[in-house]
Structures are given as structure tokens and as C-alpha cells.
């Protein structure tokens, strides 16, 4: 008898739980915190300060989403993920979104069942070499040792590119960015390859950055962006439009600090975004001021860029492709109406 009850109970647990999957937005609100996956550390993109708080270009997206949804940009629980753990962590529901320089690819979108909420950084894979080697093109790298971070698209791109160009090489696979950089500095490999932004970030940490050059070849397209699980479109929309709002504000030159003042200004698109016209927040399941808060968190896209990875910082990246479409870049957010 006892046994039968146990089995029935087990069955009920199994059945009951599998039929009810709450929406991510409700989960986040109920939990009071946004669970956000980030990388274990890339200079400028994600790092911990002296007080152990996560900061950087990627955490800034999490903070903006938390501000929009929960009203407080500090209500984020960060989960550092490696190349290996990031997808299972997201798929299993351990985190609500992943903001970790992740390339938007077909198989990740379709086969692994994720939804990319947009692109927050247009990147491409490049090569970093010591200038003393006198190499001017990636095709001259025949016989070299190449440091790669594993679990990324870079190692597939690399294998493909070198195979097509008949370049033989010794891959030196490394789990984390920090170790890859350490190995490159120690001379374990001649070349360090990863996204060009990562290369610039790494080069900025060297004692003599000028002794290293980034080769002209960019061998891949690497659109990096935040992603969420398939199947919860409302949540995907929230993340997507928080990102878009940051980009549009940058396009219109509205800084985070000005968001409050411009809210009743003459620009109708800004009015719609900032909640003084229409009820666009409610359509997302949020309140009226969501976008104002998102912008207040760390400022608009340009401000975030400048604060963590821009030319004024040690990382020193130019906007390049990531400039607005009006200024020669390809950053182009859909209209907000």
C-alpha cells in the first residue's frame, strides 16, 4: 500500500511539474532578482572591481534589464559561465538571460533552441601577433602555434580558415581568456586569436601594447548579443527592446541623465519610449517608466560603450562597425512605434 502511494505521489510530482512552466517575467518578479549569466572575466566586457561587484559592457545589459523589470539595476544575480557551461546553464533555467559575448549562429539559434535578442557588439575574429615576428598577414602564419579559447566559434572558424588557405598550425586550446592571454605573453604560442574586441582588450593589458599588432584579416562575422531560451516570446521581447531602447537613445543623443527631462519633449518616438505617449510598457508587461529606468542604469548604448570599452578606457576600442548607421556603422535599431 505504502509503495503504491509513493509511486502515485512520484507520478503526480513528475506530471504536475512538467505541465506547469511559469513565464520568465513572472519568475523574475517573484524572485525579485534577475539571474544573469556572464563570462568569467574579459577585460572591459566583464570583470569584478575591488568590492567584488561585476561590471562591464555585458553586465550593463543585465543591469538595464533589471532596472526595466524590477526597478533597480542592482537587483542582478550574476552567474559566471565558461564556454562549456553557458548554454546548459541557460537551457536548464538556472539563469534568465545570458549576456556573455556569445556569437549568434544558426545552430545555437535553431538546434540549441535559443532566441537571440539582438546584437550589442558587431565583432569578427582576428589575430594578435608580436610585431617582432614581422608578420603582416594571417596567411604568413604557416607552422605557428595559435592560442584559442575553447568552446567558442573561434576554434571552428580557425580550423576552417587555415584549412582553406593551406596553413598548418599547432592549436593550443585554453579554457579561459585569462589563461590564453597568459600563454600568449609567455610565448607558448605565436598568435592569439579571438574576437577582435577581445584582442584589443587583451592587448591593453600588456606591458607594452605597442609591441603587438592585430593582423588586418578578420576571418569571420561575430555578432555578439544577449540571448534567452526559446519559447518565452514575451521575455525575449523585453530583453530585445531594452537593448533597442539603449541603441535608439544613443542614436538620438539622449543620455541616461537626460532621459527624465526629454520624456515630454517634442520627439514623438522618444515620448513613446519614455512612456509619455501611449502605453507601450504595458504591452511588454511592464510599467510606464521602464525605459527611463533602463537608460538611467548605465546610460545609453554609447555611454556604456565609452564607459567600459571605449577609446578613453584602457581597452581602447573605436566604435567602428558599432557606430550608429547614421555615422558609418551598422548599429540600426528597429523603429519604436
Amino acid at each position, binding site marked *: 500500500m505504502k509503495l503504491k502511494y509513493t509511486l502515485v505521489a512520484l507520478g503526480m510530482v513528475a506530471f504536475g511539474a512538467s505541465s506547469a512552466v511559469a513565464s520568465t517575467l513572472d519568475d523574475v518578479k517573484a524572485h525579485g532578482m534577475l539571474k544573469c549569466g556572464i563570462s568569467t*572575466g574579459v577585460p572591459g566586457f566583464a570583470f569584478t572591481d*575591488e568590492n567584488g561587484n561585476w561590471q562591464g559592457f555585458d553586465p550593463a545589459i543585465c543591469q538595464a534589464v533589471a532596472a526595466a523589470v524590477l526597478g533597480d539595476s542592482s537587483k542582478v544575480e550574476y*552567474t559566471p559561465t565558461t564556454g562549456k*557551461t553557458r548554454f546548459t546553464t541557460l537551457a536548464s533555467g538556472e539563469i534568465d538571460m545570458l549576456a556573455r559575448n556569445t556569437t549568434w549562429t544558426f545552430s545555437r539559434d535553431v538546434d540549441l533552441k535559443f532566441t537571440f535578442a539582438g546584437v550589442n557588439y558587431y565583432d569578427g575574429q582576428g589575430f594578435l601577433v608580436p610585431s617582432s615576428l614581422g608578420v603582416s598577414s594571417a596567411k604568413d602564419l604557416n607552422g605557428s602555434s595559435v592560442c584559442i579559447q575553447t568552446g567558442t566559434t573561434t576554434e571552428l572558424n580557425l580550423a576552417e580558415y587555415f584549412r582553406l588557405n593551406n596553413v598548418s598550425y599547432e592549436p593550443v586550446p585554453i579554457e579561459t581568456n585569462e589563461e590564453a592571454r597568459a600563454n600568449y605573453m609567455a610565448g607558448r604560442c605565436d598568435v592569439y586569436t579571438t574576437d577582435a574586441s577581445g584582442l584589443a582588450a587583451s592587448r591593453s593589458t600588456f606591458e607594452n601594447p605597442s609591441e603587438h599588432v592585430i593582423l588586418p584579416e578578420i576571418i569571420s562575422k561575430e555578432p555578439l548579443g544577449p540571448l534567452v531560451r526559446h519559447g518565452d516570446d514575451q521575455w525575449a521581447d523585453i530583453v530585445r527592446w531594452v537593448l533597442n531602447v539603449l541603441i535608439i537613445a544613443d542614436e538620438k543623443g539622449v543620455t541616461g541623465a537626460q532621459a527624465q527631462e526629454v520624456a515630454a519633449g517634442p520627439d514623438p518616438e522618444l515620448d513613446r519610449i519614455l512612456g509619455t505617449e501611449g502605453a507601450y510598457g504595458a504591452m511588454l508587461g511592464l510599467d510606464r517608466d521602464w525605459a527611463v529606468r533602463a537608460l538611467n542604469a548605465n546610460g545609453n548604448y554609447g555611454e556604456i560603450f565609452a564607459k567600459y570599452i571605449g577609446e578613453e578606457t584602457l581597452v581602447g576600442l573605436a566604435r567602428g562597425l558599432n557606430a550608429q548607421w547614421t555615422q558609418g556603422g551598422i548599429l540600426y535599431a528597429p523603429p519604436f512605434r
Partner: protein
Amino acid sequence: MANTSKAYVATGLSKALPPPLNTTGVIGWIRQNLFRTWFDGALTLFALYLIVVILMPSIDWIVVTASFEGMSRAECRAVGKGACWAFIGERLDQFVYGFYPLEERWRVNLAGLLLLITLVPLVFDKVPGRMYLFGYGLLYPAIAYFLLTGGFVLPEVDTQLFGGIMLTILVGITGITFSLPLGILLALARRSDMIFISVMAVAFIEFIRGVPLITLLFVASSMLNYFFPPGTSFDLLVRVLIMVTLFSAGYIAETVRGGLQAIPNGQQEAADALGLGYWQSVSLIILPQALKIAIPGIVNIFIGLFKDTTLVSIIGLLDPIGIGRAALSDIKWAGLSTEVYLFVALFFFVCCFAMSRYSMYLERKLHTGYKR
């Protein structure tokens, strides 16, 4: 008889001479212990050479030319060519507490202090109220859980923020506390007459002992969620603790089984003859004797487990190695990995060395039988 005193006959005992100079004192010791034969001498000289070649540059790098001040790697390098310990100094808090909130760290300290109290009855036999202290030891996990994660009056602290030495100790202590009873049960099950139960125990133990811990941790980090209802996600730290507990339970089961096997059958028969039931004979007769034999082995397993906690850094938890890596991605300090690893190694050496001494002391203390 005439008193014929001849000059060549000694009148008394001659005075004892001191032993030859080369068998006593420092010289004698050196002769006896370092240069007994020519081969011995050669070995000694070679060993001395090795010590000079290896030790001198190491000491030079670690202490003599090291710098203990500076706010960045560059400043460190400006002071000395050797190790840069200023980095460890600046991040010492993180190495100890991980990212535990600054204002809540007293809770970690308190939990650590309370842990020390639980250890008192284990180390000293003659403490007044030893039984009460043991009872308190049983309550400790609950107290520590409450202190560290919070709830009720204390603000909650997310386990993502746990890290550093605190995490190492947490994983180690939790693992051993929960795996001990589990391991004993498994050992008993393995020796049980009930075939199905013993087969299950054997299968479990062999599985655990057959795979590396790192694969089990990968299972915890990437696969365990598949086994629970969709949408339920439980903490990575909890999953790791479960895996670590199961892992060491497998090993403890084998050690305890060794102890059980050493108990002569007569003991069980005598218990049966007295009319004791299974649990009575096990808990009163068999286990006390078996555990006495197994305890040094259990302490050794604990040392192994403590060292194995470093593996959690591979799956992204921030134990001292993980903290070190996260800190190294700070632009100011990049490239100081040797210092980090040496510092962590020192910590483990001190802990494990102390524990292995304790294990040897236990072995001597518990060895109440005849000595050869």
C-alpha cells in the same frame, strides 16, 4: 705472601678515555649519518648540491627579490624582480570570503569560530562536557546553514557570492559530514545478506570509484538539471555538494568495509548469542570496533576530499583558484598566476599537513592492541 709491588703492575683501574673523536659529537653524528660509506658520502654531497641548486633560486624569487608593496603589477616589478605578493595582499579578503557581502562577513567569521568549537572534542579527549559538545556538533550544520545563507532576521546571501577559502572549507566539511553516515550505511549494505541490497551497494560504490570526480562535477554542472522537473533549478553549489558527498561516501564505504572485515566473526556470533538484533549488534558491538580501525583511513579520505575541492574551479565556482583567476583578469594584475598558485598551495599545505599529523596521532591513540 710478600707484598711484591712491581712498577709495571697497575695499582688501580686506568681512567676511561673519551670515545674516539670521530664517533661522538657533531663530527661523529655526521660520520654516522652522512658519510658511513663512500657511497653514502657521494649521495650526501649530491643531495647538498641539489638543495643548493633548487632551494637558493626559489628562496631568492619568493623572498629576497620579491616585492610586498605596490598597487599594480608594474609598480611591483619596479620594486623587485621576484614575486609580487602585494597582489595577494590586496585581494586577501576575496581569497578568504569570496564575494560575500562586506557588511555580512561577520557571519562567516562566526560560523568559522563555531566550527572550531565543534572540533574541540575531536582533538582533545578530556574536555568537560564532551558529550554536549558532540551534540552541538550534530546541530552545527543547521546553524552554519542559517548563518551563511541567511533568512528570518538575517539578510539572505546568494550562494553565487560564496567563494575563496570559505567555499573550500564549506565544501569539505559538508562533504565529510554527510558522506560519513551514508558511507557507513553503504558499507553495511554491501556486507548485507540481502542479495539485492548488497548488489545495489556494490554497483553504486564501484560506479563512484570508477569515474573521476571532475566528470561527476561536469554532470552536476551540465546534466543534473535534466533529472528534475522542468523549471525547477537548484543552486549549482547544492548540486556540487550532493556530488561531492556521494563521491566521498563511495570511498568511505570501502574504508569502513575494511574495518568491518577486520572484526572476527566471533563478535557477531557472540552478539547473536546474547540475543541482540541486527541494529543492536551493529551499533553496539560491530561498528564501534570497526570504526576504530577505519578512522585513520577516514581522516585520509577527508584530506583527499579537501584537496579535491580545488576541482570546483574548473566548473566555474570561485574557490581560491577560481578567485585567483577572476582577480587576474583585472588589468592591473594580469600575469601573476604563479604567485596565486603558490599562495593557494601554501594554504592547502598547512591545512593538509596539520590534518595528516592529526591522523597519525589518532592512529597511535587508537592502536590499543599489542605493539610489535
